[in-house]
């Protein structure tokens, strides 16, 4: 049994442990009797090596850190326990403090008595007891800590940006302008995302295309950007600094080098297809097409599913008329492998499918439109050249009802607020009134016009004489009850400020549909090894202090993929993500947690039980020596093999068997006399 001691290399001299209990103002001290805890630790854990136990208002403050550093120097501490908040917040802080005092940072262990004790318990006595147990567990664990050196990995200066919406574009440009290479992967034939479909942007009403197109072009022409449109990421291997990414470049059926983007193929293609992607189903495109005249790259894509040639084997109109002979019917998908150091995910959102709310009549009542359809209707480059008309394609509406919160703030659909709908609806109110002079009604639960110049815009729309009815619309129907309702769409709603049900006849209804995560966000998250919230939005590292990084080193998120947000916020987050990546690149290398598994060869029986367990292929078996070896570069430190090894031949640094066994005993207070009244 003694050979287990080989798992650890205890310091030559006796452990000298310092215990530091944080008040965190009243956050902890309000529930846990920190003074008592500290005294208890000093007394009861003395025989376990605790030489000093202090409590202090804010351990994370510099005076707090000074306390620890001073004790390390003066009392020669060789182990430190900090009982405070979650290690996910301040582990780094205190490890650095120890390092400053010349102690190996990995000899410092944090015990969470805030998130796991004071914030979740009310019974002060019980909470104090639990805090003691936690500290006792930490003390026993830290006794088995060994000095470790962080694993230093080089950072590949190239970066992958996934998603060519405004957030992704911003990230890509920031990094490329700084002089580093960027691969921008976009699923659609062109970059631009949703913003490219909009007409005006709130609250300034400047033209979306006018401000976006220049950015799109500089992405297309930037020497440091490799633009991969009509492409999707299939696989991500490796780790921060050194990712290997597999990308499928879907067959465009067009030779991008030869093609000049003259557009003759689209002109000549005889096949008209409803354009659900760019025109939101309101307009038509050809079987070979570029989403819009501003498309970047200005190279068409052949829609095989709708192409006459692929159906009947004849036509080839595009090929015949293509001067540079760029059409390639035999072109196949390409698989590319990219090596990058960091990844920014900006995969955006999808619009809530309004057909899911039958009582709003979308898909059944012709003159019910979605917000995206209206964006196209109001857009000068849209199917109606900016004329706001009914489904018949000519009649201008005299009265329009805009319904807020469609599919948002509703437990039957999405329980969250989609953030942009209020402002978007106000924008529509203005545009529709401006274009048609129609009477516009807004049906809202709350007007959420936060942020710079937004409420001023609300004021402006009020001035324009827009009607506001506070109430979530119950139903939109075409069944009249009175003469003046005949031939109209009737919006039935409770005007909650009047306290009466109203039926308001209008010509056109606009559904301000909410934002949803991409249908495949969960799979994408899995591909990149990050996690999604219950709703499907990517989870940031910290909701307030780090809304850009993820729990996976080297993977950052930007734009609506992280949660609904408007254009300014998306741009800001895109730029922020870029800044984070640039910081990494400038460091050239970064230190990783030295949590890795390794095999003690003389104990390995060569049973190979562990061999099949590693999803990162870090485990190899040497038939010649009949032993297994673990490649520290590939090992991610999950510890599954450690747990599986029947010979106990695999050890995991930072989470070794005896560290955890000791912590169990500590938590159960086996190390304390007299025994606690647990049982």
């Amino acid at each position, binding site marked *: 049994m003694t050979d287990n001691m080989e798992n650890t290399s205890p310091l030559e001299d006796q452990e000298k442990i310092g215990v530091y209990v944080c008040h965190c103002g009243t956050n902890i001290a309000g529930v846990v009797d920190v003074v008592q805890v500290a005294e208890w630790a000093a007394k009861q854990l003395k025989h376990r090596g605790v030489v000093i136990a202090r409590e202090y208002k804010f351990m994370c403050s510099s005076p707090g850190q000074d306390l620890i550093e001073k004790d390390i120097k003066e009392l020669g501490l060789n182990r430190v326990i900090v009982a405070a908040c979650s290690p996910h917040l301040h582990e780094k802080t205190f490890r650095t403090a120890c390092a400053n005092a010349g102690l190996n940072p990995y000899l410092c262990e944090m015990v969470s008595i805030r998130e796991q004790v004071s914030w979740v318990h009310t019974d002060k006595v019980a909470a104090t007891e639990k805090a003691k147990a936690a500290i006792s567990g930490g003390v026993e664990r830290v006794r088995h800590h060994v000095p470790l050196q962080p694993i230093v990995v080089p950072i590949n200066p190239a970066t992958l940006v996934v998603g060519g919406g405004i957030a992704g574009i911003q990230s890509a440009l920031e990094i490329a302008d700084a002089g580093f290479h960027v691969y921008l992967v976009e699923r659609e034939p062109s970059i631009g995302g949703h913003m490219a479909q909009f007409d005006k942007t709130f609250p300034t009403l400047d033209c979306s295309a006018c401000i976006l197109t220049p950015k799109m072009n500089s992405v297309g022409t930037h020497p440091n950007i490799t633009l991969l449109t009509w492409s999707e990421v299939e696989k991500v291997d490796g780790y921060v600094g050194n990712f290997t990414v597999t990308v499928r470049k879907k067959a465009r059926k067009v030779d991008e080098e030869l093609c000049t983007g003259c557009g003759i193929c689209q002109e000549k293609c005889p096949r008209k297809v409803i354009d659900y992607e760019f025109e939101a189903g309101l307009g038509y495109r050809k079987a070979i097409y570029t989403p819009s005249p501003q498309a970047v790259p200005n190279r068409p894509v052949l829609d095989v599913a709708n192409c006459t040639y692929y159906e009947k084997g004849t036509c080839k109109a595009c090929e015949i008329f293509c001067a540079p002979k760029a059409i390639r019917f035999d072109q196949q998908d390409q698989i590319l492998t990219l090596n990058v150091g960091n990844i920014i995910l900006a995969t955006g959102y999808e619009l809530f499918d309004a057909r899911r709310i039958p009582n709003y009549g979308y898909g059944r009542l012709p003159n019910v439109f979605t917000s995206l359809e209206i964006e196209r209707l109001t857009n000068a480059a849209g199917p109606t050249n900016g004329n706001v008309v009914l489904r018949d394609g000519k009649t201008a509406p005299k009265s329009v009802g805009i319904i807020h919160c469609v599919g948002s703030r509703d437990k039957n659909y999405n329980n969250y607020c989609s953030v942009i709908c209020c402002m978007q609806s106000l924008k529509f109110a203005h545009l529709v009134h401006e274009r048609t002079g129609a009477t516009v009604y807004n049906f809202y639960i709350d007007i959420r016009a936060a942020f710079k110049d937004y409420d001023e815009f609300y004021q402006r729309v009020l001035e324009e004489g827009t009607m506001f009815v506070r109430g979530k619309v119950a139903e939109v129907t075409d069944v009249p009850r009175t003469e003046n309702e005949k031939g109209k769409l009737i919006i039935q709603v409770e005007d909650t400020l009047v306290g009466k049900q109203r039926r308001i006849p209008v010509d056109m209804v606009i559904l301000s549909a909410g934002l949803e995560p991409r249908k495949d966000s969960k799979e994408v998250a899995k591909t990149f090894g990050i996690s999604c919230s219950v709703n499907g939005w990517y989870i940031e590292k910290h909701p307030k202090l780090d809304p850009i990084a993820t*729990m996976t080193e080297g993977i950052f998120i930007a734009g609506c993929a992280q949660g609904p947000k408007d254009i300014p916020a998306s741009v800001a987050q895109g730029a922020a993500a870029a800044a984070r990546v640039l910081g990494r690149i400038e460091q050239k290398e970064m230190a990783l947690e030295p949590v890795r598994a390794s095999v003690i060869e003389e104990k390995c029986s060569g049973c190979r039980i562990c061999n099949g367990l590693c999803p990162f292929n870090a485990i190899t078996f040497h038939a010649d020596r009949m032993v297994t070896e673990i490649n520290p570069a590939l090992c991610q430190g999950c510890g599954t093999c450690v747990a599986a090894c029947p010979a106990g031949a695999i050890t995991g640094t930072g989470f070794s068997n005896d560290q955890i066994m000791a912590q169990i005993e500590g938590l159960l207070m086996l190390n304390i006399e007299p025994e606690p009244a647990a049982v």
Partner: protein
Amino acid sequence: MTETFEPVIIGFTCNWCSYRAADLAGTARIKYPPNVRLIRLMCSGRLDPAFVFKALANGADGVMITGCHPGECHYIEQNYKALRRFQLMRRTLEGFGIEPGRLRLVWASAAEGARFASEVSSFIEEVRALGPLHWGRNNNIPLITDATILQNEEVPA
């Protein structure tokens, strides 16, 4: 016996999901009983069955294993291994004549603070109902710090 029996629960959490769920429960000030004491692992796959038996043998009345939802494991698929071991351990416990109900496996993503809290509470009540496990303490296993880990013998290979 005390009039109300307060069980001691050892909980193993995954650094990437359930530990953060516990953090979230804290940040959101969601209350649950103080009977559970948590240990952080990098992954539920790290859970060595020896840990569970050790805990139960040393005075814990129940053990809770938590990890990422199937398909959401930070290490791709290691939580499935935890699932397999969990079933194995339940059977082994039964063999020892211990209610398998003293061991619970919970999937909790980093976003599920509330779920984490409610699972803890309900598990505590279940164990409370089962009553104390007179297994620990009376068999005085020496501290491992005295250089004795029994894990190698205990692990069901």
